[in-house]
Every structure is written in C-alpha cells, then in structure tokens.
C-alpha cells in the first residue's frame, strides 16, 4: 500500500454522504440559482408551455446539484450568467446593436463570443502540450485558465444566441441546438467541461493536450463551416424540430458524444505512451505522457458516463420519435446508427467489466469507437438520407 500508516492516521476520513458536507456556501449557491431561475421564469413564462416549465425546473435542480457536487462549476455558471445578463441588458430589444455596440461587437455578440471561444481553445491546446513537455506548473495553470475562459465564452455565446434568435422574431426564437453549427459548439463545450472535471478530480493536467485536440478539431470544422459555408446565420426551426424534446434530447446526446470523444483522445494518448514504453522506455514520450493506469481509468469512466448519457439521449429520441415520426422506432438511419454506437460501447463495457480486458486493445477500440460515433453524428447527415436530416454541409 502506498500510504504509510502514519499518514493514513492523520487524514480524517470524509464521509461520503452528500448531506453532511452541505454548508453555508452550498445553501447560498442553491438559493442563488433558484432565484435566478425564478427570475427567468417570471420574464419568459409567456413563451413556455407546461413541458418547458418542467424542463426549466429540472435544469435548475440539475444545475444546483452540479454545483454542489463539483465546486468549480459554481464560478463557471455565475460568470456565464453575469456575462449573459450584461449582453442581454446591452441588447435590449435591438438586434442591430450587435454591429455597433462595442461590448457586443467585440465580446458578447454570439459570433464574437464564438470567435473568442475558438481562439482560446486552440491556445489552450498548445499551452497544455507546452506544459506537458516543460513540466511547468505555471504553464499548466495557464492552460486550465484558458480552457475555462474558452468554455465561458462558448456557453455565453450560445445563451446570447438563444436571445438573439428571439430578437429576430418571436416565431423564430429557439434554443440554439437545432443545427450542425450550433451543436458543434455544444460539443466543444461539453467535451471541455468533462475534461476539466477529470482534470480536477485526478489532479493532473497531463491529459489536457489530448482532450483539447478533439475540441480544436471541432473548432477547425466550425471555422470552416462559418467562413466557407456561412452556416452561422440563425435560421427558423422547421416544423419537425418545434418541440420541447429538442431541449433535452440534443444536450443529452452531446454529453455522450463529448465523453466518447474524450475517451478516444485518451485512447490515443494511451497507445502513444504504451508504444513509447515498448520501444524507447527512456525516451521523452515514455517519460512525459500521462501514466497508463490513469488513462485507462479515465477512459473507462468517460465511456461509462458517455454510455449512460447516450442511452438516455437515445431513449429521449425514441420518445420524441413517437410524437413526431409515428413510432418510437422506425429504423431510420439516424436511429439505426445510434443503436450501432450503443451496441459498440455496450460490447466495450462488457469486455472491460466482465472479461477484464484492459490496455491496448481497449484503447484501440475506444479510438475506433470515435469513428463509429462520428459517422452516427456527421456521416449519417452527409451521406445517408432519412428523417433526421437537420444538418447538412
């Protein structure tokens, strides 16, 4: 055992019951979120139906729980809330201010915020790698700060875009998770938050560069999609998407996609490190890349979380399909590929949990799994025709 008996004795055991750890700040946090949510309800209640109110209550509870469970989430949520409120206040009811008001044009207007997000993510990726190879604590902290800032800007941008869509017209307004452009931002945000969570819990920044590579990839796509395809314009919703289900189905899906992407990137790191250890045990890679057991552990946790979220998302999708497409399952290409992704990770988890497979084959599988996921996410929209054709290139 790595821990000495003396050290063990000095460290008091923290009881795992969540109720015992609640304190003043926790109460304040919960109160703040509840009040904020209540205010939002009071403002926007005329636009919401019963389901949407239920979703708002559910999200409020989820947000409170998230902050109680993971403290850094609080600062993040409050910063985003503050920036969003400032943006909404500056906008008032005039969408055209986005072109003239300094604060909006250069910082908080959704496009501006997304550009900040993109820049910061790419910077963070590079910084994480510099930190990894230079072993500098300071650079590592900088990378973390950059990632947090990028995520703040991204989420602020999405929330502001939500409001902007209503400024365009109340019949156009909708939550910005309705097309490929918007969900790519969501993907980047969720992947970053998942990574930041594991970084915090495992007290290591060694995985950062790899996790952020996936996000930088998404950012590259996003920039191409914006500048080459002009995909960033807010479009009204087609009738099939006008449903409260979208608010829960899409985010749940992207927790799954984000977690799978994270697992795949850790799989890449795993393969690099194990390859380096086999060939050049004293080499730079073998010494600096994150340790194998850490990668294996986080890879498993990410896939387990992704699998749980993806299961929920697919079930929500089925429930929605029962309302929109005539049944909970139609073997539509999107549904079928969701099943394929699900079966793939179900097989992965079975092998790991019951057959005890570890290491290189599972890392390879996680990497290949990302391609399967990517096809379900993008390929189906690009190459196959079906009911779920909501984002095309």
């Amino acid at each position, binding site marked *: *055992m790595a821990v000495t008996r003396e050290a063990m004795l000095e460290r008091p055991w923290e009881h795992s019951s969540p109720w015992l750890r609640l304190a003043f700040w926790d109460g304040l946090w919960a109160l703040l979120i509840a009040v904020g949510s209540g205010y939002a309800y009071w403002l926007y209640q005329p636009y919401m139906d019963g389901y949407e109110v239920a979703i708002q209550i559910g999200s409020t509870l989820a947000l409170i729980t998230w902050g109680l469970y993971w403290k850094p989430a609080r600062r993040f949520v409050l910063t985003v809330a503050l920036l969003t409120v400032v943006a909404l206040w500056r906008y008032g009811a005039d969408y055209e201010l986005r072109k003239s008001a300094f604060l909006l044009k250069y910082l908080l207007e959704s496009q501006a915020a997304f550009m900040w997000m993109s820049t910061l993510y790419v910077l963070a990726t590079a910084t994480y790698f510099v930190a990894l190879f230079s072993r500098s604590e300071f650079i590592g902290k900088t990378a973390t700060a950059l990632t947090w800032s990028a995520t703040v800007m991204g989420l602020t941008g999405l929330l502001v875009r939500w409001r902007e869509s209503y400024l365009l017209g109340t019949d156009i307004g909708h939550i910005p998770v309705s097309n490929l452009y918007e969900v790519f931002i969501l993907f980047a945000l969720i992947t970053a938050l998942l990574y930041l969570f594991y970084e915090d819990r495992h007290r290591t920044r060694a995985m950062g560069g790899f996790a952020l590579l996936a996000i930088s990839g998404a950012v590259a796509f996003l920039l191409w999609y914006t500048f080459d395809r002009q995909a960033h314009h807010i*479009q009204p919703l087609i009738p099939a998407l006008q449903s409260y289900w979208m608010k829960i189905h899409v985010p749940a899906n992207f927790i799954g996609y984000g977690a799978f992407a994270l697992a795949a990137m850790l799989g890449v790191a795993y393969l690099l490190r194990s390859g380096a250890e086999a060939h050049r045990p004293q080499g730079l890679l073998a010494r600096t890349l994150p340790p194998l057991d850490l990668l294996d552990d986080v890879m498993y946790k990410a896939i387990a*979380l992704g699998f749980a979220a993806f299961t929920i998302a697919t079930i929500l999708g089925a429930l929605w399909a029962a309302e929109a497409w005539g049944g909970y399952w139609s073997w539509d290409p999107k549904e079928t590929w969701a099943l394929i992704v699900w079966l793939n990770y179900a097989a992965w988890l079975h092998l790991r*949990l019951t057959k005890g497979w570890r290491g290189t084959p599972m890392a390879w599988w996680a990497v290949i799994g990302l391609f399967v996921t990517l096809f379900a996410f993008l390929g189906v929209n690009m190459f196959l025709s079906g009911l779920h054709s909501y984002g095309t290139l």
Partner: protein
Amino acid sequence: MSETITPIGKSVHRRTLGWVLLEFLGSMNLAITLLVVVAVSSIIGTVLQQNQPYPNYVIKFGPFWFEVFNRLGLYDVYGAGWFIAILAFLILSTSVCIYRQAPGKLREMLRFRTRIRADSLRGFHQCVEWRLPERDLKAVLTEVTGAFHAFGYRWRVQNYSDHQVAAAMKGRYNRLGYLFTHAAVVIIGIGGLLDGNLWLKLKEWRGEIALETRDLAARDIPPISRLAPGAVSAFRGNVMLPEGSAANFVFLRLRDGFLLQELPFAIELRDFQVEYHATGQPKSFTSQVRIHDQDHLGDTPLEATIQVNHPLVYRGYAIYQSDFGDGGSKLELRAWPLTTARADPVETQGEIGSVLKVAGPTGAIRLELDDFRLFNLLPEPGAQPGDRKFRNFGPSVGFKLRDAAGEAHEYLNYMTPVQLEGRWFFISGARAQPGAEFMYLHIPVDANNSPERFLRFNARLHDADGLRTVLARSAPSVEGQSPDFQRDLDQVRLNLVGLFAQGGFAAVTQKAQAVVPADRLKEATGLYLNILRDTLAEVFLDVLREEGVKLEQGVGEREDAFFNDALSALAALPAYGSPFYLQLTRFQQVEASGLQVTHSNATGMVYTGFAFLVIGIFIMFYTSYRRLWAWLALEDNGVRLILAGAAHRHSAEFTGEFNALQADLIRRLGSPEAVVEITVPPPDTAEAVALQPFIRDTERSTSNGSHS
C-alpha cells in the same frame, strides 16, 4: 461460498445436452458476437435506402443483383426473417444469461459470506493482519462492527469453534443493476418485435393475406389484401386525404405492394394549411380533421387539429401529420404551339392527377398533370452554396408528356415570370429521364407580361411562306448582283432558319462542317451565323412591326435584350421536346394532407424497458458493491484480527476507504501502539484467486465464459 461451488453437481450437468446448450446461449462470447453482428447487419439498411419502389432497385442493381438482394430481403432488412432471427437470438441469449446469473446476484445481495477461511482473506488485495495484545474477542468485535457501521456497512457475525467472522457489505443494490439492464434488453427487444411486422408476416406466411401490387382505388382492393380493424395488433399506415374528403382506411406499404388496413372510424380532412416564415421556409403544417365514429361518438364528430409533433391519439390509434401534397387542384392552361406556323394558343382545363389527350405532331400524346405547388422556395440563382439566399418562384405545375410508346418527358412550368439579371422570363424545366437534372427554358416576357411575342416569333420560323415575304421585303440591295444570286442568298437564309428551328445553333455549325472544307470552316461558320442572326433580326423586326411597335427611332434597348434572350430560348427549343408550351393561367388549389395512422400494443412494455435500462445503468456505474471481512481469533492473551475487503469496481476509491477504515479502527482500539501489524505470507496466488469468493461469484465468466 459453499453454495456457489458444487463440483459434484456440475459434473452431472456437464453431460446433458441441455446444459451444453444453456452454456452456449448464455456465454459472454456469444453475447458480444451477437452485439457486433446486430450492429454490422443494421448498417445494410442505412446504406441501402429501404422500401423504395422496386423498379428503382432494378435500375440501380440490374436484374441479376436485384433478384439476389431481393431474396436476401435487403430492401426491407429490418423486416427480413434472418434479421428478426438474429434479434430473437440476442433476446434468447440475454434471457439465458439472466436465468443463469440472477440467482447468484440475488444471493450476493442477500447473503453475508461468513464462511470464509483465513487463508482466503490473506489472498485479497486489501488485507491487513494485526495482533492486538491484551484484548478480548468481544471487545474487539464491538469495535470492528462499530467501524463497519460508521462506514455504512451492514454485517453479520458467525461464531465458529476457534474463531469468529464478521462479514459486511455495502451497496448491495448494485447487484440489481445487472438485472435491470439485462431485463430491459429483453423487454425492449420483445416489445419491439411485437410492434414490428411480425403479425403481418405470420398472416402472410399462413396465406391469410396477400400483397396488392396493382394501382387500385381503395374500394376495388380485394378482401385478401384487406385487414379488418384489430386484425394485427400493430401497424403503421398512410393515407393522403384531399381537403373535404374522408377515409376509414390506411395503406400499409410492404415490399413491392401494399395492404389496406381498415380503421374503426373515419377521418375527414376539413382543411390543410401550410404557414410560412417571412423567409419563405415552412413554419407549420396543420390539418383540421373530424373523426366520425358512430359507435363511440354518435352523431357528433370529434374535431381536432393535427400538427407535426402534435399527433391526435384516438382510441389507441395515433394520427400524425406526415406529408402533404396536391389533392386535385383545378388548373386552367393555355397551350402555345411550338412547332407550327400558327401561334394561336389552345385553352384547356384539367385537375392534378388527371390525364388529358393531346394531338401531337406524331400522334396522340398523354398530358399527365402530376403536381401543383403554390410556393417554390429555391436557392437564389447564382448564389453561392453558403449564401442561404432563397426566393419564392411562385406557383408551378408539374406534368409529363407521354407518347404512344410510353416514353415520357417531364416538365415543371412556373406560372409567373421570374426576374433574372434584370430581365423577366417564363421558366419551364424539362427532363427526359426521371431523376435527371431539369434543363430550363427561359422564355423572355414581352411588354404585355406575356410569352406571346416570343411564341409568335417562334411560329414565324416555321412559316416558310411568311419568311419569304419578310426576306423579300428586307433583302439587302447589293448593287451589281444578279437576281440569281439574290435568290440563292434567300434560299440560304431560309435553309439556315430551317436548320436553326430544327436543331438550334448546333445544327447550323454541323451543316457548315459537312459542306465547307476544314481550312475555311471557321470563317464560313462565322458567316453563316451572321447571316442567320441578321435574318432572325429581320423576322423579329417584322414581329415587332406587327405588334405595332414604332421602329422609326430604331430598336430600343429592351427589344434588343429581348431579341438576344429570344435567340437563346429558340436555340434551346429543339431539345425541349414538347410540341407546345403549357402556360398556367389560373388555378384553384386543393391541398391534400398525408396522415400516418399507427397502432401499437407494446409501447407501454417498451417504455418500461427504457426505464429499467436507465435505472440499471446508473445503478451499475454509479453505485459500488463492497464487502469487508473481519476474522478474529484468540491468540496468546490477545486477539488476532484479519481485516480484508473486496470491491466490485472503483478499486481506487475502495483502497481509500479501506485505508480510512483501518485508521478509524486503530483509533477505536486506542492507539497505534495497541496494534501490531504482522505479515503472514499470502497463500499461493492461484489458489488465492480460486478461493476469493467475491471474484468467483461476480466474474465466473473468466473461467467458464458467461455473462455478468
């Protein structure tokens, strides 16, 4: 642990066929293989578009492969016998797995493992062995169970002749996770199969029903292709209802035919409406319907609104807004001849879905009126793909012209002129192959907002006598040329116009290639085209004169542009393939709403499965099943204590907890000095693994390959 290891019983089992079969069906390898097989075979149906009209497949694959794929059921993979068999096999395999694993899981939940040897515990990853001098057994046991309690464990103590064992566990509901998830797969699978085409297939196999493949009206469909209400428990059918009509049936499309499913009520479509955003994109599709059901509603029908995402559920039947189309719009049409010297149009009427007989130059042709659209939102011409600029091109009529041989040209004519590059055109798309790109004819619009001037101009080109008159009047007088030359020149001009009217500019250049030596070809073609152009200009001026346009000041810019556009259109006419241009002059739209009606019996079952799945997954991943043991024996005026533990997962967290538990226990026992840690070498590793009760039970798969 003795209850799980029964070597004698096993050897008896091993000989029976049933046991071997059970072992195979419940094996982990089979389960993973099935997961992968289902995943891979599902891909087929996403790559190959399912349930298309069969002729499309023949065109795509050719007759041989069409038949091969047909036999394999690839056009409806998810209803194919072999695919359903794989799914059924997966359900069976999972069920066997549950049957074999459930008792063990329940035992793990309910029973404390107090029968355990000290050597087994020493083989555990988490194990410490202490000597506690000057203690009595009872006091130590109290402290141990106190620590168990503090860490949230439940325990049981068993007294043996020479020692005591306190066995504890925590998170036992984690064992339910396995049951929930695997039961969910079985429940969802069975429910899904029940809601699928299973019943239809069964009836078809027994010869009770047969697919109808002819294009028949609903009332003509024979009883063998009809399903009474309730004949099958689950179906998904479609019906296209024109406004003002009603139906008490839907069509079930199946492979290359269909069945008629009768409903126990009638749906009347009162009104169908499409709303549009300011940008022209559709905002909503709404059907106002009335349900007539004498038995349940009496004489007062049920009024309801159906929209996308807002189906109407009536008596367990769900009615969805799924499609829309034309319900027989009434059109007034004007046919302008394109290939004769007469330009006078013929007025006619028709409705969408009907066929008009038209006399063509080479016999009768059928004019099939296929589709009318009020709005045509299309990308702005000349816009970049990313510009997302759209324009509403207004009402259109889609029709086919089919000759006696059955060959058809397809057309799409827009009613109102369209502005392109500052000029206005009537636009007509044409294609000879279904699915090919439309080639567009742009007819320039005259001062009266009509295609008339162009069509008169075109008619002139088919009027040889008229042409001669015009040529004679406008002959360029060249001094010193003989009348013969003048006559020859006129003939050349006539021929050129004739060639042009038959085959466009291409025919003129081809002619030049045929008669002029190669070294003078370029020069001669240029000359021909110039002569042609001048001649056409003369004809055009004559058309203008006839219209009463004053030409004393010369031709205006607009007329000049018109002439150029007319030339382009005339050049495209030979490929247009229609003897007339069909102008849509008036319409009365009748819309139709495509409704999907579904009935399902197993939805509740499937949703229960969904709930089980989510509950199971969360229990499995986010709760942890842990066991602790304390083995105590009196020894040399003190107590020997072995503390050991095992966790199903989360080993890092469990290590932390085990360490903390030790620390807590030491505090309870007084001070660190009171505890003497001793090291007893663990038994042989292989034996230890074999003896670890926890691992044996949860991961029996590693030895004999079954689910967990």
